[in-house]
């Protein structure tokens, strides 16, 4: 199980990178470029607040997983 958790750590890091890509290029930037004020606010919130929290958080979770921080004996 410990090895599986470490392997999955790589999956979570890749997922974090994909989430960042999706949030920035598929959600935030298209919203910002619509020209509508409410889309602009929402796009900026996604870009500056939500993306860092979600992507960095998931990336860090994956990193800790890869390092073995969630191994049975450390929990």
């Amino acid at each position: 199980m410990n090895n599986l958790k470490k392997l999955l750590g790589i999956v979570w890091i890749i997922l974090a990178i994909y989430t960042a890509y999706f949030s920035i290029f598929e959600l935030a930037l298209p919203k910002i470029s619509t020209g509508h004020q409410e889309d602009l606010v929402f796009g900026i919130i996604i870009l500056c607040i939500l993306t860092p929290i979600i992507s960095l958080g998931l990336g860090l979770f994956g990193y800790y997983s890869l390092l073995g921080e969630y191994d049975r004996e450390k929990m």
Partner: protein
Amino acid sequence: MGTLIEWYDFFIFGSLSIVISTKFFPSDNPTAAFLSTLATFAAGFVVRPFGALFFGRLGDIIGRKYTFMVTLMLMGGATFLIGCIPSYASIGFWAPLIVLILRLLQGLALGGEYGGAATYVAEHAPVGQRGYWTSWIQTTATFGLFISLVVILLTKSFLSETQFDSWGWRVPFLLSLVMVYVSYLIRKKMKESPEFSKAKAEGKTSTNPLKESFGNRYNLKFVLLALFGAAMGQGVVWYTGQFYSMSFMKTVMHLQSDQADTILGIALLLGTPFFVVFGWLSDKVGRKWIMLGGMLLAVLTYRPIYESMYQLSNVQQKTKLNETTTPSTEQNSAIVTITKSQYDDGTEMTSSKIQHQTGELKGKETIKTTTHLAGKNYILLVALIFIQVIYITMVYGPIAAFLVELFPVKIRYTSMSLPYHVGNGIFGGLLPAVSTYLTTNAEASNTPQFYLAGLGYPIIIAAVCFIIGSLYINNKSTPPNHE
């Protein structure tokens, strides 16, 4: 009681958003519209995590009781003041600005309240009953929404439409002061949490809870686990059952607004006792598999549930009994023709064909449809929403006890509040935007079941959360060295 009032205060703004927008945020004024957008997004999910950090830190330093007394006053005061602000027509730009500031204060207070209440109750709970005791707090969000709807309906029933629009909408806000005062009196008599008092007496409280919670790898890994292994899945299941279902009924099924509200209200009322049932059960069998079970059921059944909901109002599958068309009339510079159709299962559909005579839409035609379900279909729809409420109670009932038990007393308030509010505020709060994006894309690419595309977001988030939770979380209640 206090947490219930906080949720009531928070939801009353959303429930009265249409009236509020006409009083404070006129759409023809760009600055007011900008402030309106900020008020919606910022208080809904951006400010809540900051409230969790600010009040969590206070609660771990000075105590739970005084901190959540402050959050209660802040929320109650802000809600009451929203009811007192003169409209945009009276004081211009200041009106939306003050509403925005008060709304931000509401978001901050809500961010601080939940962690305090959950921690306080859990630390008072007898051994082996934390799940049961804290599950009562879990009922408050649903009850808060329910009570806000009831107070609005009662106020409307005592007043004429003109009176409600003129000043009656302020009543639910002003009522908050009375409720907060009652709650204040109750909380004033309560004692500080015994576990916190003991830690304080022994000099074991934290001097810098933020640093210890998030600057220490051992604790930070539990914060991340709480977020990605429990709170984010719980957030999307909660939002899907309580808000996405409502939006689906109104905008996809085109159900009459009052009927959709009533159906959701009945399902919430029937389902709410299950928060306590699953909280109690989590004391017996552990928290992990009840919460993850709710997520797995949601992942597996959301699509068939929503497909069934859609088919209940899909008139292409029904036999039309009769159709009546009223003569065209002119309303607001448009010619309106109303057609009513009745179907063999009791469904009634009203289509309004609007031919625009002026403005940007001049010469164009729009059709608005509303559907009214009856008999067996109505009961089936209540049952389908009720199933989703049960999933909510499974993931949400035990989560307060789960989060409390994941962290030590000295940083508990801070550490548990953040993942809860990020999970709910951000992962849950993003649901409408991401689901709309997915649905729009599916519709543009002519996907046959485009109306189910929006479910992709909660299903993926809940599935990832299920995998993380099932592999990384232990079913035992408390990690070592945490008491």
